[in-house]
């Protein structure tokens, strides 16, 4: 068994009285693109700062390439960080910025310039070598920050909400480029974001964090299709959540009583236990064709046209506090005020232990 590139063991951290990380353990494989996804205050940025060496954890250890790095200062770690505000040196040229890390390693000027040009070419900014950071646009500064961090060939590149300051279109474009650059250099990237679309698009390994804990981790497809907890079912994409109790258990199926009526699920659960069922919006069927699991009737409260689809909100007739969130084809003729039958396929129901 090979050791993981980064091994975070039982790390906890407190700022004064406030516990921001609670016993977090995480392994990161070489060459992977890991996304730490979570809302603000979930501890994802603190975890990144601990990896970068800017924060010493209150408890636990961090191993990088098998070495205990818990107390090693940033300068002597095999990590570099791309800061959210880019943190370029405003008094140096772009070339000076990118070459700074090599300069600190004592690399001579000619080699430094050559390597800096190479790194700038990698991020598509070869012509900016002599410019000053203030002459560049936000997206270009972002690339310079990336080149500056990559040029010293770190074992792990840490990115703190790198796309947060860019507008939506640029963000999607940079997202594709980040992935392409990561594939080309093969360095492990650890990227913090609160944008779930960014997470799904970029991650090989997606880590969903909430309230100082890891809620779920794995390939984004798995995390989306089979979220482990109620939080990841609602944070990584939307879900309709049905709270219920198991009333009957079969061999490989159970019946759960929910506000929308009894629902059959394909897993064996102990009778009497409380569970939550999650259904993704694209799996809910309203009116028309019926799925194998009926979820009662619902009154449509809102239909929002979003180009390629319609997003529909509907309140259950049986229990008006239950909100269905559905994604229907753009051609759907449903209107606000209609009362329709709700259903889905039994296979698409995600069982969350409550």
């Amino acid at each position: 068994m090979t050791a993981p590139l980064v091994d975070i063991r039982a790390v906890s951290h407190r700022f004064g009285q406030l516990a921001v990380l609670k016993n977090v353990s995480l392994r990161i494989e070489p060459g992977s693109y890991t996304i730490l996804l979570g809302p603000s205050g979930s501890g994802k940025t603190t975890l990144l700062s601990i990896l970068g060496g800017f924060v010493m954890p209150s408890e636990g250890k961090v191993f990088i390439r098998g070495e205990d790095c818990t107390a090693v200062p940033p300068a002597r770690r095999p990590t570099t960080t791309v800061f959210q505000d880019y943190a370029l040196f405003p008094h140096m040229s772009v070339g000076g910025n990118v070459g700074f890390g090599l300069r600190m390693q004592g690399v001579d000027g000619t080699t430094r310039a050559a390597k800096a040009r190479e790194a700038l070419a990698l991020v598509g900014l070869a012509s900016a070598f002599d410019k000053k950071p203030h002459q560049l646009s936000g997206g270009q500064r972002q690339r310079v920050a990336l080149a500056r961090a990559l040029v010293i060939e770190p074992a792990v590149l840490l990115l703190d909400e790198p796309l947060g300051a860019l507008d939506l279109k640029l963000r999607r474009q940079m997202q594709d480029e980040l992935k392409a650059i990561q594939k080309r250099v093969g360095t492990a990237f650890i990227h913090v974001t609160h944008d779930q679309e960014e997470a799904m698009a970029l991650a090989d390994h997606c880590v969903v964090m909430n309230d100082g804990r890891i809620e779920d981790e794995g390939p984004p497809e798995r995390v989306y299709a089979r979220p482990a907890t109620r939080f990841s079912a609602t944070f990584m994409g939307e879900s309709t959540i049905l709270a219920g109790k198991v009333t009957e258990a079969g061999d490989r199926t159970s019946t759960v009583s929910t506000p929308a009526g009894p629902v059959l699920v394909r897993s064996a659960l102990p009778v009497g236990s409380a569970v939550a069922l999650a259904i993704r919006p694209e799996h809910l069927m309203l009116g028309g064709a019926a799925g194998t699991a009926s979820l009662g009737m619902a009154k449509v409260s809102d239909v929002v046209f979003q180009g390629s689809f319609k997003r529909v909100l509907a309140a259950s007739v049986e229990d008006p506090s239950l909100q269905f969130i559905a994604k229907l084809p753009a051609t759907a003729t449903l209107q606000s005020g209609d009362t329709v039958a709700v259903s889905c396929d039994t296979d698409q129901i995600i069982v969350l232990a409550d």
Partner: protein
Amino acid sequence: MRQLVRVVSWVYALAVYGFIFLPVVVLVLFSLQATSFPIPPFTGPSLRWYEAVLSDVRLTSALVNSLLVASISSATAVTLGFLCAWGFARFVLPGSGLLRGLITLPLTVSYLIIGMGLLVLFNWAGVPKSLLAAGIGHVVINLPLCFAIIYSQMGDHQINIERAARDLGAPEWKVLLLITVPVMAPAIFAGFFLSMTFSWDEFVISFLLTRFDTTLPVEIWNLLRSGLNPKTNAVGSLVFAVSIVLVVLFELTLLRRRKA
């Protein structure tokens, strides 16, 4: 009526500017006097009194002393002020607010009190009256100023820049020298030139703390004791010219920073 208001406001403006600038104009004008008394009628222009000043060894050596004291004490004040500001801005210190208040306190204390205090202290410590003693006095009055200027410009946005440098392998002294100082350069220069201006025409502390070698303001005071003559006007004009240069340099560094 309108016309009258206009006339009155013009007269008022002229009176205010006249009040402020007339003494200086008179000083400079009569420094160009050709005869021996700086009183009307004006007999110049002539540069004979400037020649007299520049050939007066006592005055020229005092001028050199003043420049030395101003530049060395300002450099010291700005260095110490920068380090203080950096320390307060980047580290959590116990009683930080109180300590910052104590550093800036000398700004509110009169130069006379500071001068007398230093005189007593130096007497007790056996430090003789000298340019060094006056220079130390100037550091005392200018350090709070440099600290306040530089500290006010040390924003949080530079923290990440310093972090980035550390992250890329820079030891702490290189972070300071290669990153923080250049980024803070406008504030540092502003502090330096303002200190120069204050040190250049500071009288009380220099008067109390120097004896044989002394600074230009003290030497001018010596000169004035034997009565007015155009030579005092000439040397006063020189002092004024240097002050203007320093203030302009200060304004320029400040303006450049605002634009950036």
